[in-house]
């Protein structure tokens, strides 16, 4: 299998051995040469023989399968992306059956230099023999696809789904991939799309990148998905509170009055009778069997109830956890802010105290002033010696040696560019004594005074020189 891989198709799968096999068969019939793409299948904890099937699968393209404990679709997609070699990533759900021109269409939707995320249609094939829930989902999907396919329609992050999506690997890497805290069904795609939009990625729709969705869920399965979607909607809103006001979560009080009343009643009953949701699923199954003429309407209402069941449950859970944790965090925040404020006030107090006792000249400038008259008499850029009292006491909060050292340093600092040596081995020697006019005779032995500048500052000539 030689050649450069341009596309990496990532298909996370969970307990759908037959579906994934169908998807791989369809990928084997692509018009794009098999050397130009690879398929990566992260198996998200399946124990239905998917791994064994994939191990024996004879694919014309490079196929990689990895198994990981069940962590959700986001983690599985990230695991697959990490193994990808192609510059373009195509995310595909495991119940999809792409048409032969599918990958070529995705490739064509990404011209050089573009920075896009492109979704393709995911129509659900259904006829009169199909289960009613499949027809219901087909109608809903067709309505979505009709909207996406409208000329001039600008896709927003809520139009993006990862069931049939292509984007540059670099863009995905830049935003850090999918958020793996989304372990339940739903919203991980909106969340990714929201961050992609923030990172400047444009969204597009490729009508030719068709992948048929072989819908095999029952109403009970769809209801479970809706409960999970309610949970993940809360997670999404908590992660991006700045857009929470525009989400479905904030539409609880919208819609017909009668339905809002019924939904509230159902949610209240769910609190009283934990098995109420199961009873509702059973009731829907009965309506399905009766082929009730308003079945689609009841599907919509029931699924809306299941969404809110998940959302209210998540809000209660996160509320209970958050109350304790956020109270702690808020307390810590308040302490931190108060500490900062307190420190600032203490700094201000120190400043006021310092300003009240401010001398006309700071200590170093005052000390330096003693050498003002000496400096012009010294040769520029030359070395002179240094002599001071042999017996200097402690002072300025320093012990005697440190005080003597500090005074020597200050002398050097004041007399630059003349270099002051710490001994008397130069021709000229600077004297720096504590008391004016009476240099330490022991210290000045072998030196002859040239000039006394007052304040204990003197210039000597070394007799040895």
């Amino acid at each position, binding site marked *: 299998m030689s050649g450069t891989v341009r596309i990496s198709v990532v298909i996370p799968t969970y307990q759908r051995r037959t579906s994934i096999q169908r998807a791989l068969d369809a990928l084997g019939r692509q018009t794009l040469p098999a050397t130009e793409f690879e398929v990566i299948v992260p198996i998200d904890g399946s124990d239905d023989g998917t791994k064994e099937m994939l191990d024996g699968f004879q694919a014309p393209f490079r196929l990689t399968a990895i198994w990981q404990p069940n962590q959700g679709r986001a983690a599985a997609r990230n695991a697959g992306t990490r193994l990808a070699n192609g510059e373009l990533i195509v995310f595909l759900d495991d119940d999809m059956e792409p048409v032969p021109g599918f990958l070529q269409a995705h490739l064509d939707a990404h011209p050089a230099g573009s920075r896009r995320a492109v979704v393709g249609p995911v129509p659900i094939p259904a006829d009169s023999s199909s289960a009613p829930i499949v027809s219901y989902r087909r109608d809903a999907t067709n309505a979505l696809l009709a909207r996406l396919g409208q000329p001039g329609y600008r896709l927003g992050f809520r139009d993006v789904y990862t069931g049939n999506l292509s984007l540059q690997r*670099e863009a995905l*890497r*830049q*935003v*850090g*991939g999918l958020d793996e*805290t989304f372990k339940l069904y739903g919203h991980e795609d909106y969340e990714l799309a929201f961050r992609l939009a923030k*990172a*400047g990625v444009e969204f597009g729709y490729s009508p030719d990148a068709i992948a048929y969705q072989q819908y095999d869920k029952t109403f009970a399965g769809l209801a479970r998905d809706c409960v999970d979607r309610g949970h993940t909607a809360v997670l999404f*809103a*908590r*992660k991006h*509170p*700045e857009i*929470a*006001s525009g989400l479905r*979560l*904030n539409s*609880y*009080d919208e819609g017909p009055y009668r339905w809002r009343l019924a939904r509230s009643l159902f949610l209240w009953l769910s609190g009283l009778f934990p098995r109420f949701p199961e009873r509702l699923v059973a009731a829907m199954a009965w309506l399905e069997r009766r082929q009730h003429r308003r079945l689609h309407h009841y599907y919509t209402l029931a699924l809306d109830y299941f969404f809110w069941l998940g959302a*209210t449950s998540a*809000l209660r859970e996160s509320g209970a956890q958050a109350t304790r*944790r*956020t109270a702690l*965090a*808020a*307390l*810590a*925040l308040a*302490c*931190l*802010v108060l*500490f*900062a*404020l*307190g*420190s*600032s*006030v*203490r*700094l201000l107090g*120190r*400043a006021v105290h*310092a*300003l009240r006792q*401010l001398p006309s000249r*700071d*200590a*170093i*400038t005052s000390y330096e002033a003693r050498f003002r008259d000496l400096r012009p008499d010294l040769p*520029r*850029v030359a*070395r002179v010696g240094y002599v001071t009292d042999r017996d200097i006491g402690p002072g300025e909060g320093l012990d005697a040696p440190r005080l003597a050292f500090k005074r020597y*340093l200050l002398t*050097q*600092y004041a007399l*630059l*560019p003349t*270099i002051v040596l*710490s001994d008397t081995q130069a021709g000229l020697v600077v004297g720096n004594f504590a008391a004016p006019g009476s240099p330490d005779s022991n210290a000045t032995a072998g030196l002859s005074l040239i000039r006394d500048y007052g304040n204990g500052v003197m210039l000597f000539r070394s007799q040895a020189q």
Partner: protein
Amino acid sequence: MRLALSLAAVWLIGLLTLLCLGWGRTATTGRGRSVLTCLAIGIGLGVSSSLFVVWLLFGAPAAAFPYAESVLLVLLAVGAFVGRSRNRRPSQYLDRSSQVGRPVLSLVLSLSVACAVIAFVAEWMTNRQGAWDAWMTWNMHARALFRGGEQWREVLTGLPAWSHPDYPLLVPGSVARVWTYAGQETTFAPGAVAMLFTFATIGLLYSAVASLRSRTQGVLAALVLLGTKFYILQGASQYADIPLSFFFLATLALLSLGELSESNRSRLVMMAGVAAGLSAWTKNEGTLFVLALVIAYGLVMGPALGWRTALATLRSFAIGLGPAVLLLAFFKINLAPANDLLSDHGLRQSAERLFDAGRYVQILTGFTQAVLEVGAKGLLVVLLAAYLLAVGSTQVEPASRDARVAVIVIGLMLAGYAAVLLTAPAPLLDTNIRSINRLLLQLWPSMLFACFMGARTIEEAGIVTPRLSPA
């Protein structure tokens, strides 16, 4: 007047240098412009100081430097104008701020800034020439550059070892440059340079965290730095650790901004290289920082971005790093004597010191004392740790990744400091141990950057959140 002119020129040089390097290719928010403003101050001080030293190295008369700098300003302005991009990509900075509590935090921040400015000025007026190390090393070297005239090399290298003539010249160069503009020595110059670096660091910490995470997060980071009394007072004491902390922070912030801007990443990383190079030209610890950063970046970004991308990024970093490193290398080879802490490192002697348990105790004690001193007797560290534990760490990328890079850099730097002290020749002096607090101070703004990049924002932690119905 001339002093003000020289400081205005510094900011313009910084601004135009960043624009020439391609800052303007990403359209930025107001906070992005604040990042640019603060960066321009520090980068301007660094670049102008380096140019001044290069000017002196070429033997040109110092008095002519302001004219040469004027010409450079015109050239940079032309370069920025020619290099400006009409096709700017939209802002990619994230904003997850909530309005809740904003007025209170803004008020507290304003009060803290006002207190810090007053405290800085008062401290400077008490000690206009700076504290011990400031006048003994940095202002002494500045005087050598300024007073030495054409013989500045002889004066600088003639200074006794206790003045550390091997230390790089960014801070002395900045001060001597301002004196050259003013035509005389004035204590306003080192004070102004110190003040610019101190408050540019605070401003950069606020604006970078605000741009990369959220405004409230930026305000909190700035508040903690402003509440670090030791930092403000050391700034007023004119220690070079504050400029060094600016360049450390600028490097990390620019790398993080580069992570968010795919179209402009290489240019922002190049700017990060410039900042890192200037850190090496500020103090010897800057060289250790460059090494630590390359290792940390490789460790985190190699697996995350792929080695090819990580190496390409490091290449851009090296290009930015180059000029300052060349200057540093020239200085170290031709002018500077060997460093007293790094010289006399025979393998056998170093190994012997490694088995000296007393040294470990001394260094550990030094670090503990430093933490207590920087962190207001440990209270600030405890409060900060409690806050970080309460809000938890963020899962948001690339902020989490950037925080990991910063944490590894800081860890490597601390290990490096400890290793140098551990293997230093001769017994460790009290002054070595007492100066550990300043080593910690150099890293303090970067530590806060890492903390507030890696922590969840108050919005993410749910301290403030819009009410979701039905709650």
